[in-house]
C-alpha cells in the first residue's frame, strides 16, 4: 500500500520535473521539427509546381511566396556581400536584395518543380554545435540517370519558425561560392554595390539563372 502511494506520488513528480526541464531542452533546436519543416516545404512546392494545369506566371508567384516565407533572403544577401554590406546605402542594399531574390527564384523554381516528393528524401539532421539555433539537414535527390545528388540545407530557427540560409550540394555551398565570387567582383570595382546589382539584373533579364536542362 505504502509502496503504491509512493508510486502515485512519484509519477506526478516525474511529470513536474519534466515540465520544469522543458525550457532547457527547448533551447536547443528540435531536429525533428527541422526535418518536418523541410518535408513540408518540399511538399508544398512539388504539389503546385508539378501541376501542369497552372500557368507559368502563377507558378512563379506561388514559388516566390514560398521562397520569401522559407528562405532568409536578407541574411543570405548580407552574407554574400560580406564586408561590403555596411558601406552600401540602404537604397543600394534594398535594390540588391530585390534583384538577388529574382535571381534565386529563377534558379530554384525549375529545380523544385522537377523533383517530386518520391525522389526527395530527408536524411539525418545535425544540430550545429557552435550555434544552437542552426542545423544542417541532409537530403538525397534521386535522378533518373546517374548517382543521386546529396544536398544539405542549413536552416535557422527563430521562435519556432525555420528559415533556409544555405544549400550545400556535394560539399559545395551556394552561399560561400557566391560570397567568394561577388567578393572578388566587389574588390575589383572598389567595393561598390550598384555595379554588381546592375550586372546581376542584366543576367536575370536574360534568364541566365534558369538551369539549362536538356
Amino acid at each position: 500500500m505504502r509502496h503504491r502511494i509512493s508510486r502515485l506520488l512519484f509519477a506526478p513528480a516525474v511529470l513536474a520535473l519534466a515540465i520544469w526541464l522543458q525550457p532547457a531542452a527547448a533551447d536547443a533546436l528540435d531536429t525533428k521539427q527541422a526535418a518536418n519543416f523541410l518535408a513540408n516545404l518540399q511538399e508544398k512546392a512539388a504539389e503546385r509546381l508539378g501541376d501542369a494545369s497552372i500557368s507559368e506566371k502563377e507558378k512563379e508567384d506561388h514559388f516566390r511566396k514560398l521562397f520569401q516565407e522559407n528562405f532568409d533572403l536578407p541574411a543570405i544577401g548580407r552574407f554574400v556581400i560580406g564586408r561590403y554590406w555596411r558601406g552600401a546605402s540602404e537604397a543600394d542594399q534594398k535594390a540588391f536584395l530585390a534583384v538577388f531574390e529574382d535571381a534565386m527564384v529563377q534558379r530554384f523554381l525549375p529545380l523544385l518543380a522537377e523533383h517530386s516528393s518520391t525522389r526527395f528524401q530527408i536524411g539525418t539532421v545535425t544540430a550545429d554545435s557552435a550555434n544552437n539555433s542552426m542545423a544542417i539537414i541532409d537530403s538525397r535527390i534521386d535522378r533518373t540517370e546517374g548517382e543521386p545528388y546529396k544536398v544539405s540545407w542549413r536552416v535557422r530557427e527563430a521562435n519556432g519558425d525555420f528559415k533556409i540560409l544555405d544549400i550545400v550540394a556535394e560539399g559545395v555551398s551556394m552561399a560561400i561560392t557566391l560570397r567568394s565570387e561577388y567578393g572578388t567582383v566587389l574588390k575589383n570595382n572598389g567595393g561598390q554595390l550598384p555595379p554588381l546589382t546592375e550586372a546581376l539584373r542584366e543576367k536575370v533579364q536574360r534568364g541566365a539563372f534558369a538551369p539549362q536542362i536538356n
Partner: protein
Amino acid sequence: MACLFVKFSAFFGGKDLFSGMVSSSVSRILRPFLGVIALTVFLGACAANPETAGLQPGDPQTIQIAQSDSGQGGSDAWAESESGDFGPEADDNDPLEVPNRMFFAFNEALDFMIIRPVAVTYKFIVPTGVRNSVRNFLRNLRTPVTLANDLLQGNLDRAEITFTRFFINSTIGLLGVFDIAAESGFAYHDEDFGQTMGTYGAGEGFYLVLPILGPSSLRDGGGRIVDIFLDPLTYIAPQEFNLGRTVATGIDFRSRNIEELDSLKADSLDFYARIRSLYRQLRENEINNGAPSDEVPNFSEIPGQATSSLE
C-alpha cells in the same frame, strides 16, 4: 612552401631515390612538368608570407592559410556577416592571379574550340553503356594510384575496397570494362596524392591554374607529379598509351559536365572566381571523403539573435 616539398621528397627516400627514379622514359615525360614545378616552388617561396615561412605541414596555422573558401560556411561566418564585424580583408590566396587568369582564359578558349565540341560529339554519338564502360576501364587503370594513396592515408578499410574492386573488375569485369564490384557493394572512390597531403594537414599552398589541366593548387599540382611516380603504368606502358589515357579521362570528365558547366558559366559574374571557389570546396570535400569538415573554432561572442531586416 619550398620546405614542404623538401619534406616530401625526403619522405620518399631522399634525393638519391628521386633522381634514380627519373630514368630515361620517365624523365622525358616529366621534364616539362619539372620545369613548371621548379618555377612554382620558386615563386611560392617568394610569395610565401614571412610569418608562415618555416611552418611544418600539420601545424594548425598551415592548415588555416589558404582556406579562404573552406570552413567559412560555419555559423560564426553567418554571425560575422550579421554583426558586420569583419577582420582584415579576406585573402583570396591567389598570388598568381594575373598569370592564373591568363591560363584560365587560354583554357576557356581551348575548351570552346576543341574540348567541348569533342565532348559533346562523344556524348552524342556514343551510347551511354559504352561510355560507362570506357569510364570503368579508365578508373580500373587508376586503381594502383588510388590504392597507394589509401595506404599512405592509413585508411585500410578503403584500401581493402580498392583492392577488392581491382581484383573483381580485372577478372570477371573483363579488364575493368564492367564495374561488377560496385554492384556487390564495393563502390568506387578516388584518391590522389594532393588529397593525401591534405589529410596530413597540408594547406593548398596557393591557387594555381594549369594550362590544359585546369584548376589546381601548389599542393594538388605537386600531388599530380607524385601520382605519376606512384603509377606502375608510367614505367611499363608506352608513352603514347599514357597520353591517350590522360586525354580520354579528360574527355570523359568533360562529357559528363556539359550542362553543369554551361549553367555555372551562364549566371556567373566572375567565372574565374567562381571556379576557384568551387575547386577549393570540392577538394576540401574530397579530402574529408564527403564528411562535413571540422568547423573553425566557435567565437563565444555571437551577437544576439540576428534580425532579418535591413538595419
